[in-house]
């Protein structure tokens, strides 16, 4: 699903954010990416979402060589991803329903199809009864669940999450992680960047460890 081959990323020709990173993710895996802030987690996610291009090496996701993807093809590549942000990035001037519907309206689904899928996604995160609410009326944990519903509503093959539990208490964090495990169980490949080491240790998944732009650990593979 994901292959990093000797990937390097420099900013401004001097600062090296990533150096010779190699790893592979198979379809259907659930993997954590950890490291201190500045270790390169964000860079990995920015490369995977095509916000940035690698300075060196090759990244292949679901058969696409990201370094060679033309600008016009990037939107269509991104539609195969689901992205969950740390601060959930909901649009506060729209209802919960409209927020979750966003990826579908971008992809040109009809209104009835949109309604069906949005309700299915909201149901899965347990917030079907809040579809008419505005995001501001929801708690932090609920907002993050809406963010997840938006990331999975178009049934992406790969789900990327950037510190999805960053601002939540341990109980809510565990709930959120359980949600990711549910999606992983039905075949979605999941990559979660997180520095919540205690939580990661409790969940028995593969962990990629970054330090100063290098991959220093790849644990729990195949477990």
């Amino acid at each position, binding site marked *: 699903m994901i292959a990093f081959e000797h990937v390097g990323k420099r900013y401004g020709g001097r600062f090296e954010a990533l150096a010779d990173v190699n790893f592979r993710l198979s379809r259907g895996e659930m993997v954590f990416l950890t490291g201190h802030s500045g270790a390169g987690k964000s860079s990995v996610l920015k490369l995977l979402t095509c*916000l940035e*291009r690698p300075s060196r090496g090759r990244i292949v996701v679901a058969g696409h060589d990201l370094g060679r993807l033309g600008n016009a093809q990037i*939107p269509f590549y991104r*539609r195969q991803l689901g992205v969950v942000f740390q601060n959930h990035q909901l649009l506060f001037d729209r209802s919960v329903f409209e927020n979750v519907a*966003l990826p579908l309206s*971008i992809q*040109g689904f009809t209104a009835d199809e949109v309604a069906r899928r949005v309700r299915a996604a909201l149901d899965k995160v347990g917030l079907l009864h809040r579809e008419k609410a505005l995001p501001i009326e929801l708690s932090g944990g609920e907002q993050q669940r809406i963010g997840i519903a938006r990331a999975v509503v178009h049934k992406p093959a790969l789900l990327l999450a950037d510190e999805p539990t960053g601002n939540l208490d341990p109980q809510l964090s565990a709930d959120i992680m359980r949600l990711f495990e549910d999606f992983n169980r039905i075949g979605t490949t999941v990559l979660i960047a997180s520095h919540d080491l205690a939580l990661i240790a409790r969940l028995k998944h593969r962990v990629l460890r970054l330090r100063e732009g290098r991959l220093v650990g790849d644990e729990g593979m195949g477990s």
Partner: protein
Amino acid sequence: MKKGRRTRQGARNQQSSFERQRLAWQAHHRQTARDALHRLKQRPIGTAMTLMAIAVALVLPAALWLLLGSAQVLDRNLSDTAQLTVYMTPSASDVDASSLLERVRARDDVGSVTLVTPEQGLEQFQKTLGLGDALSGLDKNPLPAALIVKPVTQTPEAVSALSLALKQMPKVDEAQVDMQWLERLKQLSTLGQRVVLSFGALFALGVILIVGNTIRLSVENRREEIEVITLIGATHAFVRRPFLYSGAWLGLGGGIASLILLAAGMAWLSAPLTALAESYGGQWAVPSLGFEGSLFLLIVSTLLGWLGAFIAVGRHLSHMTPK
């Protein structure tokens, strides 16, 4: 049998899914257009100021255009009255005058000819100058016979050619036509057209800048939204669309406001202008753009708004390509 049915059904599904996508696309456009209008209504004061700025920028060239149009009507009327006065030599007799009249009348390029005998000329002179008594004291009529000639073709070239030909006829002293002011009027009218065109181009640029600046601000306000939808797979066209609709709405609204301003202004000016025209013995209709002109103005203003928005969003999008 069973397989055949499934294939047919598959084909039908495929067709209807294409149809569904087209409908979804249309619905998306309608929704985006409505949203854009709604957002403009949510900021009534800012929107009104932008609309007025656009209206003012459009009214000036449009008003100039209208005034130029009525000046051209005036010009045409005046050209139609172009005529030559052919003065005969003082020695010419009545017989000379009537033979000249016949010869001139026979020409193809002459529309109509009237003979003014020395007696008629004197009478007119007395009437217009009110010098009846002073002139009756003269023992001899000093005026020559004259022909008033209306040419068929009113162009300055044709009129001056005719005047040359008439001058060469026997017993003709002078053929007079005031060509210079006709030509000046023509040149002034050409100049006026170019002034209107250049003003039009400048103010069109103004409309693009006004809309562009307004849209630039709303792009700034919606920066986060743009980032989010871009990251979940929105194409540049999708990101641009709401702003293009906003720009087009602003252009259309500004165009409508300019039509209202223009009509009000023309109504206000019409009374004194009509009075002025009447005092010169002319007729003057209040100029208006008419249906086609108004439609043209609205289409142009809508396109200018769209273009301003396109440029403003384009600048923002060009910063968003991955590095």
